[in-house]
């Protein structure tokens, strides 16, 4: 029954999305008001239908309905309820359904919150959205239908991939997808603008909020993914330059560039056609990401599906989308000029450099990700591009951008008082260098050049942002500085907070990368090992039996100068159904360091291979990400500049 209803709902949604797309061709026949009305009606209906079918799938999981192949392959009676729920998007079919649901939700969002845009633009945007929905719904119905039956119906399911049975995985995919799919908004905007051949500054500020919104989700999704990798994969790393990670990182870089170029477009009326191009590229990169993840051509922890047909389908769509939108861009982009004559200097120049470097980095990562695929398909040999390539490229491209952040914060549009800027910033830079030099020498007794540079720049960015906040709030409306901070316009706060976040993130990355201590040793019960200033005693190993797995739990006690600190319980789990062995690391986090213990192999009765890490400042990664997200939220929901000015005037 559930199969029929699910298929029925999805088929109607497909038909409706075709109608919605078709609206774009009725320009001459139907007037604009009713076109918009149709589109809005269609999108809400589609969202409703997909939502119901998604709920059906959830209920199939919660009620252990193994007559559906997808449920049978990815769930199990003994699975925890919460993981039954998250198993809905644990594999290909369900995650594509989630993808479409989110796409339609973004579409409904646009339909609801677009009063400031002209009706033609909105109806064209929604019609393009109809095309995207049409593709993905057809994709579901033709090649990845979660409502497919299985016969004979198995008594029990094959269980969810144990790697995915982790709290981090409950919210990581939806967040990432919301961000990924959110890049469709600038895309449909770009296409609508190109079709209409006109542009207005106020439309751009509307777009910018949506872009920030999807940037926030993408940032959250990526950082949750790293957090999951750090906790679950048992190697103590959080970023592997795995092709699938790159697939999510490229749209992030490109949407970050878009966010910055939109500021220039909005404030100065320039870079508009560049912003439009970036919008198209960002969405193409997200589609490419979907293709890479879903086609199964990659070697990765994320690549579950191994169906070349699916890959081919997405690849065709990708070519169609990129080809047609770029063609449209080259035919129409010259109409999108607000200002003809301008010079590029000051803040514009800095943001131009930011965009240049971000685009180049994206391109370099794209090359490193695709090169092995190209080489193997052309029979040039099987190659892999190692992490050192990405690290080298990334560091050499990012450090200049980070250096430019502070001058960008202090410079104005068009003209900047360079004398004042240089004087002010060189003092801050001087102190940052001194502080990072002292810090490295006191705590780590080494000065690796790259660490020194990165740390100085990070501190430089943080200091100059904080100084800027203090400077503005001192001259603010109220006498209370704290109150003034909250009175700041959202755009300024979001800018400064996110940049402080970047600084904090860099500190975390650099120090945890270069000064981690790693020990891989054979330990017998009741022996001790000292790492940094902590002594760790291996007490015992106990067996534990849970619903769907059994595990061996190590017990480790940590002491600092004979004072008991904390106990660790790392696990080695064996899942009953898929017989997978999984390592669950035990981590003790404090502000300045993590201690990370994972069990390796069991060598004999009482000796185990144990992996112990001391990771300084790794928490700063999550703090930095949180600050960036907070900054993004201020950008969306913060006070806008006009109300601030009005307040100052009164």
């Amino acid at each position, binding site marked *: 029954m559930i199969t029929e209803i699910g298929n029925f709902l999805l088929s109607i949604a497909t038909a409706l999305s075709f109608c919605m797309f078709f609206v774009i061709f009725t320009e001459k026949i139907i007037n604009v008001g009713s076109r918009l009305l149709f589109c809005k009606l269609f999108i809400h209906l589609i969202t409703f239908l997909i939502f119901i079918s998604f709920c059906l799938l959830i209920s199939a999981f919660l009620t252990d309905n193994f007559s559906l192949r997808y449920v049978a392959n990815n769930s199990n009676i003994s699975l925890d309820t919460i993981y039954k729920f998250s198993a809905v998007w644990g594999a290909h079919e369900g995650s594509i359904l989630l993808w479409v649901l989110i796409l339609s939700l973004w579409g409904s969002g646009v339909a609801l919150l677009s009063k400031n845009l002209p009706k033609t633009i909105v109806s064209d945007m929604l019609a393009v959205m109809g095309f995207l929905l049409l593709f993905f719904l057809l994709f579901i119905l033709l090649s990845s239908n979660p409502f497919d039956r299985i016969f004979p119906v198995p008594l029990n399911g094959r269980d969810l*991939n*144990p*790697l995915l049975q982790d709290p981090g995985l409950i919210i990581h995919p939806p967040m990432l997808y919301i961000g990924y799919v959110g890049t469709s908004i600038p895309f449909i905007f770009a296409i609508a603008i190109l079709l209409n051949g006109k542009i207005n500054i106020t439309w751009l500020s509307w777009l910018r909020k949506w872009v920030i919104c999807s940037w926030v989700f993408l940032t959250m999704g990526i950082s949750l993914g790293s957090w999951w990798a750090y906790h679950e994969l*048992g190697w103590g790393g959080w970023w592997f330059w795995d092709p699938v990670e790159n697939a999510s990182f490229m749209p992030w870089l490109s949407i970050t560039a878009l966010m910055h170029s939109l500021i220039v477009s909005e404030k100065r009326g320039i870079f508009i056609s560049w912003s439009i191009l970036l919008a198209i590229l960002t969405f193409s990169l997200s589609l490419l990401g979907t293709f890479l993840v879903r086609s199964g051509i990659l*070697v990765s*922890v994320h690549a579950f599906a191994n169906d070349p047909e699916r890959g081919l389908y997405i690849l065709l769509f990708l070519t169609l989308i990129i080809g047609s939108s770029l063609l449209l861009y080259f035919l129409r982009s010259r109409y999108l000029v607000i200002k003809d004559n301008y010079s590029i200097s000051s803040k514009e120049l800095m943001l131009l450099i930011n965009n240049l470097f971000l685009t*180049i980095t994206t391109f*370099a990562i794209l*090359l*490193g990700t695709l*090169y092995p695929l190209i080489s193997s398909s052309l029979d040039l*040999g*099987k*190659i*892999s*591009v*190692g992490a*050192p*390539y990405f690290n*080298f*490229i990334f560091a*050499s491209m990012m450090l200049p951008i980070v250096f430019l952040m502070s001058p960008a914060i202090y410079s104005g549009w068009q003209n900047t008082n360079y004398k004042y800027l240089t004087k002010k910033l060189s003092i801050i830079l001087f102190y940052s260098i001194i502080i990072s030099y002292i810090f490295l020498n006191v705590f780590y007794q080494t000065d690796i050049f790259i660490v020194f540079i990165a740390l100085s720049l990070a501190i430089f960015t943080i200091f100059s942002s904080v100084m800027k906040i203090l400077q503005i709030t001192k001259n603010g409306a109220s006498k209370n500085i704290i109150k003034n901070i909250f009175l700041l316009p959202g755009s300024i706060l979001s800018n400064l907070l996110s940049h402080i976040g970047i600084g904090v993130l860099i500190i975390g990355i650099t120090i945890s990368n270069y000064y981690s201590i790693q020990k*891989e*040793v*054979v330990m017998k019960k009741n022996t001790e090992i000292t790492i940094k200033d902590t002594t760790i005693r291996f007490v015992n190993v106990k067996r534990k039996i849970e619903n769907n797995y059994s595990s061996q739990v190590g017990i480790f006690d940590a002491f600092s100068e004979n004072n008991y600190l904390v106990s660790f319980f790392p696990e*080695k789990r064996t899942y009953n159904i*898929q*017989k*997978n*062995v*999984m*390592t669950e690391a035990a981590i003790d986090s404090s502000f300045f360091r993590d201690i990370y213990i994972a069990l*390796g*192999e069991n*060598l004999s009765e009482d000796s185990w*291979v144990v*992996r112990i890490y001391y990771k300084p400042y790794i928490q700063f990664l999550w703090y930095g990400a949180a600050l960036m997200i907070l900054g993004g939220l201020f950008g969306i929901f913060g006070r806008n500049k006009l109300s601030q000015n009005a307040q100052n005037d009164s």
Partner: protein
Amino acid sequence: MIKITTKNKSNIIKIMIFFFAFAGFCALLIYALSKNMVYFYTPTQIINKEAPVGSFIRIGGMVKKNSVIRSKDSLKVSFKIHDLEQVINVSYDGILPDLFGEGQGVVMTGKLLDTKNFIADEVLAKHDENYMPPEVADMMKEKNKEMYKK
């Protein structure tokens, strides 16, 4: 003839700067890529001396039954991998992945000592009972085909 006015001149300089920056970037990229490319070889290719000795490469194959020898008090381990035809000795000092086992497919990165011995820096085996690294799967498919022909 094009007159070179001051405006044109500054444009030309801008274009030149852009061009050189772009060229520099491409050079950097190609350099970094060529430094960090790791080629994949099968045991047969290594025995046939197709892989440069002493270089950093990736190899893959199946772990030979009863070939895993562990040291008693350290993490050192040695084993043999094969692709149904040829066998390579591997030594490794570190923690083996959870799914490492005899008869399983593995992919390793490391240094080729000579045409028979390999020192692994990193050993990969995936978290899935049915999983076989794509390189190994391809290799096995081809080998099976060849054997079938014979």
